[in-house]
């Protein structure tokens, strides 16, 4: 995961703020299946546990690659966890 977030072309965003495990992953999985191969989904989560979960998912699934993960502060001070997932198959 050395990809610079700024250079990633995002095709769709998925906002799962406020949802806890396992929902961010359940929804991301549904969303990625609606993308074409090669397209990228950006997931916006407030669940800290999603960071490790997306890493594990990318390893387990045979149709996705995790291009990058990053954190940023939301206006309300909460941390947002961003995941950039590409459909590969």
């Amino acid at each position: 995961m050395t990809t610079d977030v700024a250079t990633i072309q995002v095709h769709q965003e998925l906002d799962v703020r406020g949802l806890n495990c396992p929902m961010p992953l359940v929804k991301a999985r549904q969303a990625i299946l609606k993308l074409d191969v090669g397209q990228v989904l950006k997931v916006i989560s407030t669940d800290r546990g999603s960071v490790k979960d997306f890493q594990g998912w990318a390893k387990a699934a045979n149709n996705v690659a995790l291009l990058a993960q990053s954190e940023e502060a939301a206006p309300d001070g909460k941390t947002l966890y961003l995941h950039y997932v590409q459909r590969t198959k």
Partner: protein
Amino acid sequence: MSIALPAADVVASQASGRSEIFVHELYAALQQPSNLLLLDVRNEDEFQMWRIETRHTPETLHLPYFFFLEEEEKAIAQVRARATNGRPIVVVCAKGGASDYVAERLREAGLSAINLAGGMVEWGDFYDVRPVMEQPDYRIYQVDRVARGCVSWVFVSRGEAAIVDPLRYGERYLKLLEEQGAQLKLLLDTHAHADHISSGPDLAELTGAAYYLHPYDAIHPFDMLPARMKYAMLHDGQRFTLGALQVEVIHTPGHTLGQVNFLVTAPDGEAFCCTGDNLFIESFGRPDLGGQGERWAPVVYDTIFGVVKRRVPDHAWILPGHYASPAEANADGLYMKRLEDLWRDNRSLHFTEKERFVEFVLSHLPYMPPQYVEIKRVNIGLSNPSLDEADELELGKNICALSG
């Protein structure tokens, strides 16, 4: 045999329409051998770091929950292969969300699966309280934070109470003391802990009881900064009276420079020595958490084979601050052993030469979790973490003993 018991409990939970059980129920079920299957659906690294362990740890299957998303049928088949004949399955994850999802899938597939409510977070916060001694004149309780292998000790005598090495959730002790009708008098830390957050300073503020620590441990060993919390100073030879009990402070440096043992003598002749991170049932406290392993290892030798041997009576019950495995408990689930038996059974103590001992210690130092430096800051008031940060600092099992 009691093999069917806990399984029956879990099945009964389900029969009554419950989809989840609580950590205290699981803990109770795992006090005897059982045919439960634990299904842990966390990530690989979380599972490797810590998992549910008790005196009778059941068979555990690790299968991260995203397998149930990606290849549901295959994942369920893997579980089914291990759970024939209605064998009860308890599903566990970090916080109880993903495991709830998985348990539901398994139930839909006809398996007897139930979710552990709150997951490893709740398991990590569970304290087991058991009586050590209940005499007319005094009572002693073991308060054990099971998931971390941290043990604290509560002494009650004639309406007065002392807590040795109070763990993070101070209110649990207050509840116990309320049941005992006892007033908190002494909050005693054997040393400034690196592996867990002490509730001593908070409880002192809340109750007005005095919080005691040895002043050597009120200096952060890496920051070289003095404590910023209120404490009263312990010193070698200091004595306290707690109802019918006499408490003597014995300075036992090595694990930290300010480590002390509390030798408690009862009117019936019994003696109890709270050793903190000095002596454990197996092994003893490592000398390197202050960054000075080579210098402090010989100090551990002088403490154990000098101070302890000379000043702690052989018949005294050793009450340690940690264990590495639930197997160290006696048949009653208590982490206590008479000193004379410890000399015989604790193989880390079978040394007669200081040089050999130091060699042994320095070649058996486990990994030092980086958060241990920060936890020590918290414990002497140099840092004030949020609840979430505190949870994260305390994640996993303690690593305060030597390895191997």
